[in-house]
């Protein structure tokens, strides 16, 4: 019985870009932490109570972060090129290949994304219809591209605040650009944590598709567009 089909989920280009981005982002965050250590001024407050300090001493010392500013700057200003190029190729490829259709949200996406969340929380039984990704994923995958772009721009504003003073001013000045750059990084970390959690929930077949590009699906004669 012809009950199965192989579905092409991720092109070879996307898979390489995705996996190459992982160590690059990790290096950017790690070197960023080495740099941030030299002027660690951000924390989260509720009223006058400090909820979270970036970063506690035990954290810095546990990871061996202190007194590595020069090394952090060297790494940051080397890997920034690779991170930028990888990100640019991804954006151009996504536009040209038409794969933007799978990740872009539309005006109704927010509503459907909320329903996805309620469905995942087992509050709603019905799940909004979706393509390769649901609307919550569309929002997440689009946002993380924007976080990347904003990280590059705030990074440039900190890197060349005189030559690009118009950009630095756009972010409200040098220290605000630095503040934004920091919180965008936290945004990356937040995305990464949820992403890994969801991948664990989704299971092996989904994970494997980011390596092989292909996922095994039940044949659905009615809506099939045979291509391969």
């Amino acid at each position, binding site marked *: *019985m*012809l*009950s*199965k*089909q*192989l579905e*092409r989920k991720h092109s070879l280009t996307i898979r390489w870009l995705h*996996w190459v981005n992982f*160590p690059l982002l990790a290096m950017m965050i790690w070197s960023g932490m080495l*740099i*941030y250590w*030299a*002027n660690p*001024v951000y924390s989260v407050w509720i009223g006058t109570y400090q909820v979270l300090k970036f970063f506690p001493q035990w954290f810095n010392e546990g990871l061996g972060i202190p007194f590595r*500013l*020069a*090394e952090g*700057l*060297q*790494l940051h*200003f*080397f890997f920034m*090129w690779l991170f930028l190029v990888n990100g640019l190729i991804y954006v151009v490829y996504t536009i040209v290949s038409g794969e933007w*259709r*799978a990740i*872009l949200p*539309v005006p*109704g996406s927010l509503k*459907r994304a909320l329903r996805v969340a309620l469905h995942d929380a087992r509050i709603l039984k*019905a*799940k*909004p*219809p*979706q*393509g*390769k990704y649901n609307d919550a994923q569309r929002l997440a995958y689009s946002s993380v591209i924007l976080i990347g772009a904003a990280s590059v721009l705030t990074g440039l504003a900190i890197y*060349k*605040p*005189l*030559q690009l*003073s118009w950009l630095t001013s756009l972010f409200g*000045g*040098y220290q605000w650009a630095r503040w934004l750059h920091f919180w965008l990084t936290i945004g990356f970390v937040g995305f990464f944590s949820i992403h890994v959690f969801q991948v664990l929930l989704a299971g092996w*077949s989904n994970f*494997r598709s980011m*390596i*092989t*590009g*292909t996922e*095994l*699906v*039940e*044949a659905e*004669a009615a*809506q*099939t*567009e*045979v*291509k*391969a």
Partner: protein
Amino acid sequence: MSEVREPQETFARSEANTADILRERRILSEPLTADEARRKMSAMSRRNFLIGGAAAVFGVLGWKWMSEETKTALLRRALEFNERVAQTFYKPSRLAPEFVRDAITTPRVNGDAGMQGDFDPESWRLSVGGLSGRSDDLTLTIDEIKALPRTDMIVEFKCIEGWSMIAHFAGVRFSDFAAKYEPEGRPRYVSMATPNNGYYVGWDVESIMHPQTLLCYEMNGMPLTVAHGAPLRLASPTKYGIKQIKRIGRIEFTDHRPRDYWAENGYDWYAGL
């Protein structure tokens, strides 16, 4: 093997589907038998996991096995590449924003390299080398420097550590100084050092001739304090504080890339903003 997808989920059919709105397409193979499909998947998995695993191992081991010297050299070359990119886009007409007096923040003192030991500002003299028409150093007093046109600026001083402060600097534009005391030829660099040579910086000529690079003798309306580099320091929003040497003892125009204290300690030689 759990290669079978969960049964059809309940979809809220009444709702619009973003995938349809954007005309997203699926790419599906011909229908296959379960065995055939599994065989194809296995072959694909083997190949791709091998390639991916090899790439990951290659990358990690490559980075781990790279000697410290190679890594240092690679990163140093990246900094120098960045310097060339920055110089390509550099425009002397771009100015750092200037602030109003109310924006001035509490000044911060950071670092005293090259400033240890006894120092008598009264007997201080500035030596200048590489000047046109002479092979020895010219010696200048602070009054001779103060006799040159004065420039004031309220700009943001940025430390490479990440903090910044807004201060009012007053002094002589380096370009005005170099117009009066002309260098021999067209030197590419300027080297500066403290009187005891304990701290030294190198500047590219474009940044030192920037209209906001000052030989500074006054800060926030007061003569420079010893901690801030009395009697003469460099002040410029074109570079990080590590380049804005305090207590200048000697200035030299040169064609050789000068030594630089923090560049010798792993930092970017250019350090341009």
